[in-house]
Every structure is written in structure tokens, then in C-alpha cells.
């Protein structure tokens, strides 16, 4: 079995938001929706403080709350571990947006152009992939993964802080990094078993 996972090395991440932009370019998300975000925060107290960065994307949980609570069956977890939303089945009740503990689901209430009154050719093409009134989220760049490529944020990361691979294979890069560097997931107490691991910033 394959279980796709992502490892983000917080020691390498410099908070440049290249992944955010690469994701936006790849998925042509509308204004205000970013499947990938980078939180920036202060660690410690001045004068012994530094900036911390936390890139957050859909965690593709093994036990996804959103999938469990989706009334229409629009959200499903594929056999390879990727959680996807079928936009033709989604009725836009937005409960998954409420129940996702990581805030990585977005309700598309209107498709907005980035620059007012002007639509770039790319937006014109890309916005066709989105459906107004449904919920959307990161799908680990499913089309790229099916072609055998890595997600856009992994490829574009300038610090090589992101890794993508198979969590079920103990010899894969991601499994070894998690074991070697004691990778952890966010809020494990919620029991969602995310597939996005973080390597500590020390």
C-alpha cells in the first residue's frame, strides 16, 4: 500500500512563501484562497527570540474529521491516502470547514479576479477548474502525482525544506527523515493521524 506523505523541515524553512505562490500558480485558486499558507510567529521572548515559520497545508489525515462528517460523501480518502473533494457531489454546507482542526479547507463563495476588472489568460483557463459554492482544498497536486511528479510546493521550495514520498515504505526518504529527526504531526491529541510531518527546528 502507498500512503503519500509530506515532510516539512522547519529548520530549513525560511518563510519565503514560495510554496504559497507555487501552489496558487499550480491550482489557480481565486483571490483569498491559499491551499498552502505559511504562519510566521515569534519563538521565545526578546532578546532571546527568533522568527518561526509553519507552512500549513491539508494534512491528508488517515482519520479525517472532514471525511467522517461530510454528509454527501463528496470528501473521500483515496487508497493512496490523499483526501479529495468531489466538487460535483459537494453541496457546500461548509461543515467540513468548521470541523477541520487545521483550517485548511476553503469555501469558494465567489470566483474573484486578482486584479479588479482584468482577467489574465491563465486565470481564465484555471478558474474553470473551480466550482462556485463548493469547498476546496489541497489535493497534494493529484494530477502531478498521477503523472509521477511531486507536488508544486515540494518542487518549488528554494530551501529544499519539503519532501514527498510514501509513508508506508520504511526505506523512503520521508519515513527515514521522520525516524531520524523525530518528525511530529500537529495536534496529535485530536486523533486525526495527519500525513504531513514536521521536522523540529533544532
Amino acid at each position: 500500500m502507498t500512503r503519500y506523505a509530506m515532510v516539512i523541515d522547519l529548520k530549513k524553512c525560511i518563510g519565503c512563501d514560495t510554496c504559497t505562490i507555487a501552489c496558487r500558480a499550480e491550482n489557480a485558486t481565486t483571490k483569498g484562497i491559499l491551499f498552502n499558507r505559511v504562519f510566521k510567529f515569534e519563538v521565545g521572548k526578546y532578546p532571546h527570540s527568533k522568527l518561526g515559520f509553519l507552512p500549513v497545508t491539508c494534512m491528508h489525515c488517515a482519520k479525517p474529521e472532514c471525511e467522517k462528517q461530510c454528509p454527501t460523501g463528496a470528501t473521500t480518502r483515496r487508497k493512496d491516502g490523499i483526501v479529495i473533494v468531489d466538487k460535483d457531489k459537494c453541496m457546500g454546507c461548509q461543515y467540513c470547514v468548521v470541523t477541520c482542526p487545521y483550517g485548511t479547507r476553503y469555501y469558494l463563495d465567489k470566483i474573484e479576479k486578482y486584479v479588479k476588472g482584468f482577467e489574465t489568460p491563465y486565470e481564465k483557463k484555471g478558474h474553470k477548474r473551480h466550482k462556485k459554492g463548493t469547498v476546496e482544498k489541497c489535493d497534494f497536486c493529484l494530477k502531478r502525482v498521477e503523472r509521477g511528479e511531486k507536488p508544486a510546493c515540494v518542487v518549488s521550495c528554494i530551501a529544499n525544506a519539503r519532501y514527498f514520498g510514501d509513508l508506508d515504505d520504511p526505506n523512503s526518504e520521508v519515513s527515514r527523515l521522520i525516524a531520524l529527526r523525530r518528525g511530529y504531526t500537529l495536534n496529535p491529541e485530536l486523533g486525526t493521524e495527519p500525513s504531513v510531518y514536521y521536522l523540529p527546528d533544532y
Partner: protein
Amino acid sequence: MRNNPKSHFIFGIKIILYLFFAGVGGGASVVGTIFHILRPQLEIVIKGGIILGAPLVLIGSIFLLLDLGQPKVAWRAISRPNKAWISRGTIILTTFIILGFIQIGTWIWPFQGLGNYTNFHLIFNVINGVFGVLTLIYTGFLFDTTRSIPFWSTPILPLLFLVSGLSMGIFGLILITMGSLESHSLNFLIQMDIILIILEALIIFFYLHGMHEVTAARASVKRLLKGDLSYQFWLGVVFIGILIPFFFEILGGGSKSLTLIACLAGLIGGFFVRFVIVSAAEKTPLNVEGVLIYLTPRPK
């Protein structure tokens, strides 16, 4: 810490209005059923419960439909009753509304197809009452199972919605039947209501006290007690929703104008109970090596 506005979403005003209408409608229907069993001679209250029940829940459900992004596929909402509370709720609401309108059609509307066969109506009304209880509590379970929001993750919420819904149901019933009710029947309704108001006040106290002990939910409680929601809580819930109805009903002594004010205030209070519970919700912050990152904006 930077936030993206579109991910802040917690339920909005349409959902709060749904909770309000479904609370009054479901509550009135359950109270009507209780009267049908205990005091069958009070036909006007029993019929009042049926008249308020399904139509109000239907109005609430229309708000739910308006909230959907793709109402065309709303029928899919019943697909997963084995796991999703929204699916269960959709089935409960649909059944309740259909049963209620059958009751209205067979008993209250001029063409009384099934005549005055009271046992039939009693059995029907009991089933209707069961679905009324389910209508009141399923949203509590829906909130209870939302693990991302600690302020909601408590089994006391279904109980609070049940008691508050019953109390609102009585307020609604008194409002529509007050003109034709005898004073001792009215007093009986008022006495039931006073007990429910005391229960509701206790549950709200236990709820907030318990949630204050939960680290992740304390911020929500503080927003109610002294934060941005304090006016809605102290004025809307405590003063208008609990104190005014309680004292007006106790001291009113059956006075119709005081009872009227008590009922209107109680309904407004019921709205604010739902308003503050929905609005105070905050997601568990992400914990990165001890640093907490809040997904919802922090009120000042």
C-alpha cells in the same frame, strides 16, 4: 501570525436563525405531545404544538438551504447517516416536517380525513414528539462531535438545546394560545416554563464553568463573560432570556400583559443563547513545539 480570511469561517447568521426556528418549532411540538399524554382535554395547546411545529422547522430548514453553496445537490445530504450528523439531521428534519404536515392535514385543516379518531392522533403525535426531541438535540450532537472546537465538544450541549428548545416552545405556545386559554391552564404552562428556565440557567452555568476549566475553550468563555460577546451574553441571554421571563412569570400572577412580555423576552433570549454559542466558537490552536498558533482571529 497572518490569517487568511476565508478560513475563519464558523457558522453564520443563517445557521443561528435555523437553530432558533427549529428550537421553537421542535420545542412546541414536544410540549404539545406531552400535553396530549398528560392533559388530553387541553386540545388547543396540543393543536398549537402541531401548528407551530412543522411550519417553524420548515422555515428554519429554508435558512439551511439558503446557506448551501449548491442547493441543487442538497438531496445528497442524506447519503451518510452511518457517520455524518448532518445526514442524520437531514433525515430527522425531513421526517419531522412530513409527519407534522400530515397531522395538520388530517386534524386541523378543514378536511379532517381521518376524523376524530383520537388514538390515531395520539400515536401519531407521540412519534412526532420523538422526532421533535431529535430535532432539538441533533444539533447539540453535531456541535459535540466537532472536535476542532473545544467550546462545543461537550455532551452538555444537546441537553442545553433540549431544555432551551422546550422553554422556547412553551413561550411560543403561550403566545398563540393565550387569548383562548383558561387561567389555570395558562398557569400550568407558566409553571412548567419556570422549571425549565431554572434548569436552563443551571445548565448554562455548568456549561460555562466546565468550559472555563478546559484550557483550549477558556478563551471562548472569556469572550462571553467579558469580551466582545459580553453584551449579547449578559443582556441577551441572562437579562432578557432568563431574568425577565423568570420574574415576570413568577410575579405576574397570570397577568396577560406581563406574560406576553415574558414570552417575547424568552424567545429573544433563546435566540441569543444560540447566537453566543455559535459565535464564541474557536478552533484549537496549532501547537508547534510549544508555540500556539490561532487559526481564528483573536478578539481584542
